[in-house]
């Protein structure tokens, strides 16, 4: 068998060991997308997993309900692309699916649920709330102020939270770990073992007949 002879050969073993040690450099071959909403604008940041920005990536925003393309654009040198939430999407409260393509077959996507860009609780309550008690003026003004305040707080919070969410997204990005690599190699050697076993089993089966 070639395996023991390969392992016995120190030079070849070193060569293979070098191949296996290289991955500590990490990967840069998957596009990482992150998008966040602040007020009315959506900012899309795209880059490679090793934190280099994706320069001039093609960005497509799709209405996730109907599948129609809402807008298209090209990111800048820092991998940043900003756009205003399209009125069409706002009117229909549809989720925005942002697809970033690197132009060489690499792409990734990020979904912005409608709840992220619509004012909090926009569905039906806020529109009816101010119109319901038009008579009681002090109470209604207090409520309007409350809802304005809420909106303001939400906006400020969103601004403050954006960087945190960004680093969270980065932290969640799955990088190949040594476990993945060793697991994969284990699979391959296991498969070889399986194939060898199947091969060796065959003559015995024939003998049984």
């Amino acid at each position, binding site marked *: *068998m*070639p*395996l023991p*002879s*390969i392992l016995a*050969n120190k*030079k*070849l073993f070193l*060569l*293979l060991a070098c*191949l*296996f040690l*290289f*991955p500590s*450099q*990490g*990967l*840069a*071959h*998957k*596009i990482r997308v992150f998008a966040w909403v602040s007020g009315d604008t959506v900012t899309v940041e795209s880059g*490679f997993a090793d934190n*280099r920005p*994706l*320069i*001039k990536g093609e960005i497509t925003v799709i209405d996730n309900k109907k599948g129609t393309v809402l807008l298209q654009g090209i990111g800048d040198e820092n991998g940043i692309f900003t756009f205003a939430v399209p009125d069409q999407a706002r009117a229909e409260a549809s989720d925005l699916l942002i*697809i970033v*393509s*690197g*132009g*060489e*077959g*690499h*792409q*990734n*996507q990020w979904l912005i649920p409608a709840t992220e860009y619509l004012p909090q609780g926009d569905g039906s309550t806020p529109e009816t709330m101010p119109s319901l008690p038009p008579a009681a003026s002090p109470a209604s003004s207090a409520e309007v102020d409350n809802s304005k305040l809420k909106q303001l707080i939400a906006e400020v919070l969103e601004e403050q939270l954006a960087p945190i969410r960004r680093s969270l997204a980065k932290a969640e990005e*799955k990088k*190949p770990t040594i476990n*993945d*690599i060793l*697991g*994969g*190699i284990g*699979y*391959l*050697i296991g*498969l*070889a073992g399986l*194939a*060898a076993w199947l*091969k060796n089993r065959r003559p015995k089966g024939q003998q049984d007949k």
Partner: protein
Amino acid sequence: MHISEGVLTAPVLIGGAVLTAVGTTVGLKKLDYDRIMTVSLLSAAFFVASLIHVPVGPGSVHLLLGGLLGLLLGWGAFPAIVVALLLQAVFFQYGGIVVLGVNGFNIGGPAVLCGLSLRPLLKGSKKQGMTAGFLAGCCSMLLSALLMAGALFFSDQGFLHAAVILLTSHLPVMLIEGLITMFVVGFLARVQPEILSLDTRK
């Protein structure tokens, strides 16, 4: 070198899957079971090689070692590459399960083609062997890039744009890949000549 999920259209995906299924079947049929461990080790090398990336311009490219597998394994490179690609898709999210067929053919096809056509050179002098190694590494990557551009073209992703990006960004790595394949072949010729010659009896 891996096309992501969701880029290609259904006909391209199906075509790639059919071609890869054929290639894998032929590869498994022609596989010499005494060499199963070599196939597995080279498959592992291919699996890991994609993590070695070279930053080029706006993107980055990585080693493939397809040419090396083709040279050493012949048709056996096809199943080795497909299995490694499957594991890469599962573990690293490189490529994907649905595009496995297209990626498998894009990388496996050129590897087998270059390997089979250049292998006779391995029997020759040391220089010829090294040349075969360099050409196998270089050409398999070039053909893979062209096939990728073709797959993107048939999915209306703009052939010219993609082809220019792919070819220019892969030029340096083609050279690196060629050199690495050349040195590995030269090295094997010196220390483990049986690995190079075992399969040539077929």
